[in-house]
């Protein structure tokens, strides 16, 4: 199977996805959750109340509601700025007196300074994982071009994941939170994971047929690993899709982020990492 003849197509796909991501990030940026920005999430059930009643309570307390949704029957999900214990007590008093059967499901409040801290922790974690994966790739593949290609594919996936969440944020209200960062790191590793399996095969074939040129080698390796890559992704996709559809609000976007990362990782090992290696090897051959 001559998969590498589709290189221009792969290039076009990646170029499109990367520019779309860049466009969305520049134009719409991200929606950040209270994990990063600070603020309050309050979810409670209160039958026989209208949204305007709740809005009135907040107006009386001079608090601005950022969003107010019905997350299910009689269940309200509110987001607003960071408040202290006394303010909470006041609000709770006022809201629960609107109607009987008030029940709190979830309450979270976080000061903005803590959000900044999480941001810096996140950046450290991303840098540290990238370095660790770089070291691993470097020790695993003494060949420079393989290492660079794997790393570029890894950042390609992470960028697409960021871009997709900028889009999801704009159109569906997805927010970046601590778990999103976890998904980014998992994406980094699963991207390298897929690339390593394909690269292993190229090296194995190279040892067997030393004379074969790189494109032929790459084609053979991809053909041989393609079923595995796709089947493996399919099993992960099954599990994650079940979670996105059935798993409920709290982790819906987390599972979605992991899903995007897995799909991008599978694609990029074939569509990005190998074409990059070929590009590099061909240049070296020309120079010789």
């Amino acid at each position, binding site marked *: 199977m001559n998969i590498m003849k589709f290189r221009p197509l792969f290039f076009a796909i990646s170029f499109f996805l990367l520019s779309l991501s860049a466009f969305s990030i520049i134009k719409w940026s991200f929606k950040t959750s209270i994990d990063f920005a600070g603020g309050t999430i309050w979810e409670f059930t209160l039958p026989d109340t209208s949204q305007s009643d709740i809005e009135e309570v907040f107006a009386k307390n001079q608090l601005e509601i950022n969003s107010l949704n019905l997350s299910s029957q009689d269940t309200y999900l509110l987001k607003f700025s960071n408040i202290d214990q006394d303010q909470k007590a006041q609000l709770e008093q006022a809201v629960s007196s609107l109607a009987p059967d008030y029940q709190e499901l979830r309450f*979270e409040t976080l000061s903005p300074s803590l959000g900044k801290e999480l941001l810096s922790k996140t950046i450290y974690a991303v840098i540290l994982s990238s370095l660790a994966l770089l070291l691993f790739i470097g020790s695993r593949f003494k060949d420079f071009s393989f290492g660079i290609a794997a790393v570029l594919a890894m950042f390609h996936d992470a960028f697409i994941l960021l871009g997709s969440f900028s889009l999801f944020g704009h159109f569906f209200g997805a927010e970046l939170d*601590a*778990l999103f960062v976890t998904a980014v790191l998992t994406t980094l590793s*699963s991207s390298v994971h*897929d690339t390593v399996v394909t690269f292993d095969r190229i090296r194995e074939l190279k040892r067997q047929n030393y004379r074969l040129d790189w494109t032929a080698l790459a084609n053979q390796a991809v053909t041989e690993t393609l079923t595995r890559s796709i*089947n493996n992704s399919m099993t992960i996709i099954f*599990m994650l899709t079940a979670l996105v559809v*059935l798993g409920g609000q*709290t982790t819906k976007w987390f599972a979605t982020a*992991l899903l995007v990362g897995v799909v991008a990782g599978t694609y990029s090992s074939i569509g990005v990492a190998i074409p990059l290696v070929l590009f590099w090897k061909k240049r070296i051959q020309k120079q010789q």
Partner: protein
Amino acid sequence: MPNKNRIQKNFFIILLIFIFSLVLNMPQTLPLKFNLGPIKIDHTLYKPQLDFQLASLRIQKNTDLKYGLDLAGGASLLYEVDTSSTNADNIDSALESLKSNIERRVNLFGLSEANVQVSSLSDKHRLTVELPGVENVSQAISLIGRTAQLSFKGEVDIPPEATATATIYDLFAEDTGLNGSHLVLSTVQVNPNTAQPEVSLKFNQEGAKLFQEATQKYLGKSIAIFLDDVPVTTPVVQSVIPDGEAVINGNFDSKSAKELAAQLNAGALPLPITLIQQSSVGATLGQDSIDKGLLAGLVGLALVSLFMIANYGYLGFIADIGLLIYALITLSLYRLIPVTLTFPGIVGFILSVGMAVDSNILIFERTREELRRGKDQQAALELGFGRAWDSIKDANTCTIITGLILFNPFNWQFLNTSGMVRGFAVTLILGIAVGIFTGVFVTRNLLRIFTRKSNQS
């Protein structure tokens, strides 16, 4: 291919692990009621408890699954500790006594499973209080922040005829006016002359004045210290103390001195704290999350199983059995270690199930290649296993590296320490480790047995 005995031995190991995990994961009681032809079975199985004597070692383990706050319901509070008014040398001991104070208060509230932790990053200090199952969060918060009633009472003369019936409350009946708000800090120090541990008290300005008056008045007598009306200690005043810095010496070892200092501090929080993060989840929402996660996991597992059978036929079926054993082993480990399950943790588990199949797929694809080259089934399988091993090892190393960074085992404060992220990392790492084990040991040996049988028939 290893000889028959070896395979049989491995099979029994697998069987043993399987039964052990099955028992570990069974419900506390399992009613069995069915008719088997003429035999009627009506019996209730009870889950055996892990509680036995191994030589001189008593092994007793609670094997219930532990749920995190987001699943079990409860509150997590994060406080910022203000150390600006404390001398840098005293911060550690002040933080230590702050922690034991809060623990004491939380225990008073009846929350014995509460978890109090102090974390420090350079000059920033934080206090985390986790209260599983707490229903009235506001009450807990005000309790944690309140000042316990610490009082100092002077000894009075008791008429000789009343000594027999006098209680300690009669003996120390005179209030000195000093209370917990006057105490700044109590610490443990070692007397340079006697090398004995002693407990020091430090009062604020007003407290120092009151304390001076009290020591004048009760010189040679005792002043009792009560904490919420429970006597803590009754030291004898040996001299008048004007500077608000007193020392209680006596028969302390370092442990009892520390305890006393902590108890005294319980009156006054040694360091001011501010609540900066609060999150609470009701038990109903938690149960809802567990149900949804369970449903998603089962549906995903069913899809993956069907997919494997559709793709690899009976090989896939055996891989599915391996997957079932995988799930049982992982759940058993959660119970034994124990792992505190959070919702992100469930996501990690579900993701790792998807990844666990990977080693099987790698092996089966390699096996297919060997079959195409004309090898017989058994030889193809053995070659498939051998060749796939390198890829399995490499591929999983990456995930474990990232998992460790997320889990942050050394508790580095510049990395994430949030329970949610760690909950995910721990189930992911465990899942991958168990996945490798079931992929290369369990499924492999099961396949050896079943291909042998199919070849013989």
